């Protein structure tokens, strides 16, 4: 594995997105943040500061998710379709280096977008006169980790299937992963052994994104236990390593026609 070559591939992704209209997403984020928080803080009976924090962090997650999905699902297929992969793989670039480069490139872009959106959000909180808890940064880190796990899932799926299927399955992974506790309850409720087994399999395969939902703690109790700060990081590392391994192994065997 050569880090220089991985970095070169990552740089292509970064340049592509920075030079495209995707950066407009940040402007849309700002408009969405202001409108959504203003509307919901007026119609909701909850404390406006809680509503704004909840919507602000939720919007960072949704926009990050969109970015990862829309860019991620075509990350590999576009290279094959346009045949640019032929020129890349005819150089001394290993297939796993290509996958890791693509992964790091999209992670870096997501990080830049996440940080810019987070800064916009913090400035907005200051402008609204709402106190900023340091735990907001932890909640944002957990959101980012969720996105990175999703990127690794997208890469694993797109090494195995078409962009459409990758998109659908990734959304499925995300939605089911965010409802892991409900799935666990379903296991207890279901009587049929086959269904029970099926739900258990789903529960074990799909990453439990609920580990990363520290946003609720920040909004409601303004505290996150140190164990809840670091455990998700460990989980994220394990999930990412697993999905990247699947992506690299399946791409290694892919017949690039």
């Amino acid at each position, binding site marked *: 594995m050569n880090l220089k070559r991985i970095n070169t591939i990552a740089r292509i992704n970064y340049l592509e997105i920075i030079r495209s209209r995707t950066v407009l997403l940040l402007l849309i984020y700002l408009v969405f943040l202001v409108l959504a928080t203003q509307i919901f803080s007026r119609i909701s009976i909850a404390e406006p500061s809680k509503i704004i924090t909840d919507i602000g962090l939720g919007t960072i997650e949704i926009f990050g998710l969109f970015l990862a999905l829309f860019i991620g699902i075509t990350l590999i297929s576009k290279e094959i379709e346009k045949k640019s992969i032929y*020129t890349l793989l*005819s150089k*001394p670039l*290993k297939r796993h280096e290509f996958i890791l480069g693509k992964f790091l490139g999209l992670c870096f872009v997501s990080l830049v977008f996440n940080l810019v959106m987070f800064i916009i959000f913090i400035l907005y909180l200051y402008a609204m006169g709402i106190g900023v808890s340091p735990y907001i940064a932890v909640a944002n880190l957990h959101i980012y980790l969720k996105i990175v796990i999703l990127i690794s899932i997208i890469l694993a799926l797109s090494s195995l299937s078409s962009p459409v299927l990758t998109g659908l399955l990734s959304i499925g992974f995300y939605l089911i992963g965010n409802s892991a506790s409900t799935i666990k309850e379903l296991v207890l409720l279901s009587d049929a052994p086959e269904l029970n087994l099926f739900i258990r399999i789903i529960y074990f395969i799909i990453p439990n994104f609920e580990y990363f939902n520290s946003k609720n703690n920040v909004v409601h109790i303004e505290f996150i236990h140190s164990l809840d700060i670091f455990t998700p990081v460990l989980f994220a590392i394990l999930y990412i390593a697993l999905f990247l391994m699947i992506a690299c192994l399946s791409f290694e065997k892919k*017949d690039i026609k």
Partner: protein
Amino acid sequence: MKEPVISITKLAKTYKKYGRTPFPKRFKALHEITFDVLENEIYGFLGQNGAGKTTTIKILMQLIPYDSGNISILGKYFPDTNIQRDIGFLPELPYFYDFLTLKEMLSLYGRLFELPKKRLDDRIEYLIDLVGLEDQKNVRMGEFSKGMLQRSGLAQALINDPAILILDEPLSGLDPVGRKELREIILSQKKQGKTVLFSSHILQDAEMICDRIAIVKQGRVILKGSLKELIPPLDNIFEIHLMNLDSAETRMIEDQNCFEIMFSDKYGNLIIKTRETSSAGEIINIRLKDMQDKIIKINRKTPTLEDLFMEKNRED
């Protein structure tokens, strides 16, 4: 005797095509093809679309697996993962990231070879000058014409100063000026000691620059050798126009295998073609002895690779 730098022996490849059924249809793209490319020669790998040229090249570049056979490049046997360091490759209809400038694109590919910065910068300047795109080096490649993209593609293939150049249809889609320029660049690379393997269906270009060729048809090499061997300089092609032949005379011509009928109509007008070492007089006096008065025109020309290609295609 020059050493082969690329040696392909009994290379076979089958594609699986999945339709509506779970069982794939098998399509044999290469039937045990064998050929060698010698050091410092330009080797033309020629054939119609779908003949198996690109499949062979993709196998050489280790982009797709193969069923059986042996391949060695510069003495290294497949699968050798370090072979790419010595090869420059231009794929058919190359696409380069349209958001990058030519300079950025070359720098990107150069970095994959881990070239030192100073050497890479010098190489980029040299290659941009070689392909004649000095004025476009800072222009995004999305604005490039097809010819400019092809020249950029050749520049990226040369970024590592490779010993071997493998070019897949480098001249297709180019105008005559573009083709001439690219031919000259390929010839200049031969002068620098490089070996070039290129696939093409444009036979005129191949004839102008190739030392040796292989013609591939439906996954089989049907002809290979040097152009001098394949097209003897003493050969002539005669195109003979005849008129008002009766049915017996027409049949007589049809029965002679040496004649290829290019045109015929119900009035007995015929245009035939033949490749001979003999003179026009001998053909008229011997083969068309009884129809001399019906010959209205004879054109003589030196046979080309295209004539040879058409002949071989007809035979097989």
